[in-house]
């Protein structure tokens, strides 16, 4: 075999702590290696050209690049060797940057380690087999999970691109968080005024079929061919008949139902339409509060409904949608005030959250846009905004920044002044994070034009005193304790992963971080892809983000899907399990343990039963290979012999 070894300096990143020249010299002595060199930036265009030329000049048939992590550039170099005429799997990477040069301090030890890493890679590469993708047909429909602004953007862009879109929303109405906002920063545009038309577009687009009040039950299949089972939750109302007139809501005797849309700012009815602009504008019964469903006595709504749409017997229904790609835009959640006992933990009615305040500001909200304290319905004059209520707080397990709070606090403070001109707002902040276009100017406007008092420091305690709330904190700029008497306190509670995010991730086979946010394929270069082919991310499900970012990601994910679907056939990853039928004894332990049900039994001529891998379903995890006692099923590119050669090169040579 003729192996070429290319050792990258990565500028000084590697060459600073690894003697790359010596590594090249030593690795040239390895069997099979006929050429070993080092290069300043192997991933650069001239660097890749050097590989291509060496393949031709030295007649190389295998290539090892010792550089950064294969998670970074494996694909890059696979393409390089492929362009030079080699099979793309005749390539291995030795990670001598993240795993060597950046973590070890002793240059000799690092150099020795780098040489061993190359030796292992050479042992593996000489055992690489050429692998070829096979192609399969793509179902050009896309599923979008979540109809907030990100999901709607994805759905509309895909639909405009000519794709059939299935849009699933777990709430009775689409619009997500943005539909609940009053105005948007930094333009003070009316949120529903700009979102409403989009919602209508979604509802009316012939390419989009909407499943509102629905959840994902089960996902099977693989990129290009997913089968998605959708649970359509029962609203106890036949939506085909419901006209959205609101008669039922008016007459419903249960007046203390929790209003999910308004985050409990005021109660609602057991049967309700979440908000006037709701799409679909249909009534839903909250079974937990419905007297008929709980106690079997009432049925007022059924009597008053002019369309005879109420049906207490309605059950959840299931539909299966076949799609080729999935965009996950399932949004975010907010922490419960209970996590903030020093701020009252939700016990004080006049300590509310940012999103609740948003509803108080909103003209179609429970107070018709009048800012009234929840406790006594009076107009507050002194309002305190507390940023980082939970965010950047390791003690409650939320070390991250919630991204949009600084901006919405500034917006809310400005709006407060507009609503109540003789009011005074205070903002307690840790840092003002306003890096977007026009953002910093906006926060300055709040301070300079609207007289909002910004106090840098954390609030340590909030407690009631008479009708007032006392907000105690420190002004770290003055180095003094501060106490503010407030009529109303607004907490910018931390954004979290949406409830049920982890369960959905497990159905999708995508990964999520310790906070439940979905993990993108690469934080810089593949921000909307996941590690599962055909599943893309949009919006705050990936991490807290504001509207423009969410919309941008929605469009980006749609572009990814459109690009994916621009081909009729997809290529499968050939690094999957393969069965040696001669060695297989047909015990099918592999089939029993395959996480993807990708292995089935097959009866050969003569009656011998063997395992058979369904190529397109196999994801390449290799559980089967470590299960098979006789090594008859081997994960290509990570075969027993390859891993054993690596072990041997470390332990026996």
């Amino acid at each position: 075999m003729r192996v070429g070894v290319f050792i990258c300096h990565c500028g000084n990143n590697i060459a600073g702590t690894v003697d790359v020249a010596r590594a090249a010299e030593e690795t040239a002595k390895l069997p099979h290696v006929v050429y070993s060199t080092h290069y300043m930036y192997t991933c650069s265009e001239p660097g890749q050209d050097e590989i291509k030329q060496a393949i031709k000049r030295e007649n190389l048939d295998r290539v090892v690049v010792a550089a950064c992590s294969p998670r970074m550039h494996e694909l890059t170099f696979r393409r390089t060797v492929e362009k030079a005429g080699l099979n793309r799997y005749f390539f291995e990477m030795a990670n001598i940057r993240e795993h060597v040069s950046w973590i070890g301090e002793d240059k000799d030890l690092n150099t020795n380690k780098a040489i061993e890493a190359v030796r292992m890679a050479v042992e593996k590469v000489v055992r690489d087999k050429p692998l070829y993708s096979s192609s399969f047909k793509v179902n050009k429909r896309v599923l979008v999970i979540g109809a907030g602004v990100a999901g709607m953007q994805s759905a509309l862009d895909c639909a405009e691109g000519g794709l059939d879109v299935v849009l699933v929303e777990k709430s009775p109405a689409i619009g997500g968080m943005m539909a609940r906002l009053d105005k948007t920063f930094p333009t003070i545009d009316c949120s529903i005024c700009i979102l409403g038309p989009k919602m209508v577009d979604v509802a009316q687009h012939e390419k989009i079929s909407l499943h509102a009040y629905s959840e994902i039950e089960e996902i099977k299949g693989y990129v290009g061919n997913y089968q998605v089972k959708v649970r359509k939750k029962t609203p106890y109302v036949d939506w085909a008949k419901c006209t959205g007139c609101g008669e039922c809501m008016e007459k419903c005797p249960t007046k203390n139902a929790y209003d999910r849309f308004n985050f409990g700012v005021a109660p609602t009815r057991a049967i309700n339409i979440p908000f006037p602009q709701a799409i679909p504008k249909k009534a839903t019964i909250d079974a937990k509060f419905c007297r008929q469903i709980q106690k079997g006595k009432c049925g007022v709504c059924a009597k008053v409904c002019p369309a005879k749409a109420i049906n207490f017997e309605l059950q959840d229904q299931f539909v299966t949608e076949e799609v080729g790609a999935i965009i996950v835009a399932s949004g975010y959640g907010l922490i419960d005030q209970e996590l903030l006992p020093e701020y009252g933990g939700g016990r004080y009615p006049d300590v509310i959250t940012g999103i609740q305040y948003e509803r108080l500001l909103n003209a179609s909200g429970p107070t018709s846009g009048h800012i009234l304290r929840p406790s006594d319905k009076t107009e507050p004059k002194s309002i305190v905004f507390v940023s980082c209520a939970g965010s950047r707080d390791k003690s409650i397990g939320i070390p991250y920044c919630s991204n949009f709070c600084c901006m919405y606090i500034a917006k809310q403070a400005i709006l407060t002044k507009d609503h109540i001109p003789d009011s005074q707002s205070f903002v307690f902040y840790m840092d003002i994070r306003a890096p977007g276009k026009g953002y910093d100017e906006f926060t300055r406007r709040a301070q300079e034009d609207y007289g909002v008092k910004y106090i840098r420091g954390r609030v340590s305690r909030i407690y009631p005193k008479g009708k007032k709330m006392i907000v105690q904190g420190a002004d770290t700029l003055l180095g003094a304790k501060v106490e503010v008497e407030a009529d109303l306190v607004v907490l910018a509670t931390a954004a979290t992963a949406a409830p049920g995010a982890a369960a959905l991730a497990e159905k999708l086979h995508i990964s999520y971080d310790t906070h439940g946010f979905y993990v993108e394929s690469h934080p810089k270069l593949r921000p909307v892809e996941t590690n599962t082919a055909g599943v893309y991310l949009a919006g705050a499900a990936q991490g807290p983000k504001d509207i423009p970012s969410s919309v941008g990601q929605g469009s980006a994910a749609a572009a990814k899907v459109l690009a994916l679907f621009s081909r009729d056939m997809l290529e499968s990853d050939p690094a999957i399990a393969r069965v040696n039928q001669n060695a297989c004894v047909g015990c099918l332990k592999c089939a029993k343990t395959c996480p993807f049900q990708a292995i089935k039994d097959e009866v050969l001529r003569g009656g011998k039963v063997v395992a058979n891998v369904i190529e397109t379903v196999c994801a390449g995890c290799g559980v089967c290979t470590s299960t098979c006692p006789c090594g008859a099923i081997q994960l290509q590119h990570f075969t027993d012999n390859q891993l054993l050669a690596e072990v041997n090169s470390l332990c026996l040579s």
Partner: protein
Amino acid sequence: MSVVEGKELRIVGFLCNWCSYGGADTAGVSRFKQPTDLRIIRVPCSGRVDPLFVVKALISGADGVLVSGCHPRDCHYSDGNFYARRRLEMLKRFLPFVGIDARRFHYTWVSASEGQRWQQTVTDFTSLIHELGPAPLLPQNKTLPKEARA
């Protein structure tokens, strides 16, 4: 060329591509300094790690073996690490029966974002292995003619 005599011991790591290998990358990107003994073999999933690889490494002279995968529930392949957990636990309990110090084999879970946890794991495991010293070698060819080429 092998371990640097007197400075390093032979520690073999099997890391799943998606979490722990990424975690080791993250540690690298963050420049979290670590001892240099560990050599990493990349596998797609901890479920790919046949316990026999660990045995093979230990029998062949590894002083320590570390297996790391995604945290339970976070497996890229959804179930791979659940199988790994059972099989590696079985192995960990079995090794001392044949006289192999179970401390020389450690399995754990490190996610792609846990650079610090990875650094801690490598540092602690390496220092433990140094404390235990080189693994006792198996006697070679005891019954065989004191062979051919003396």
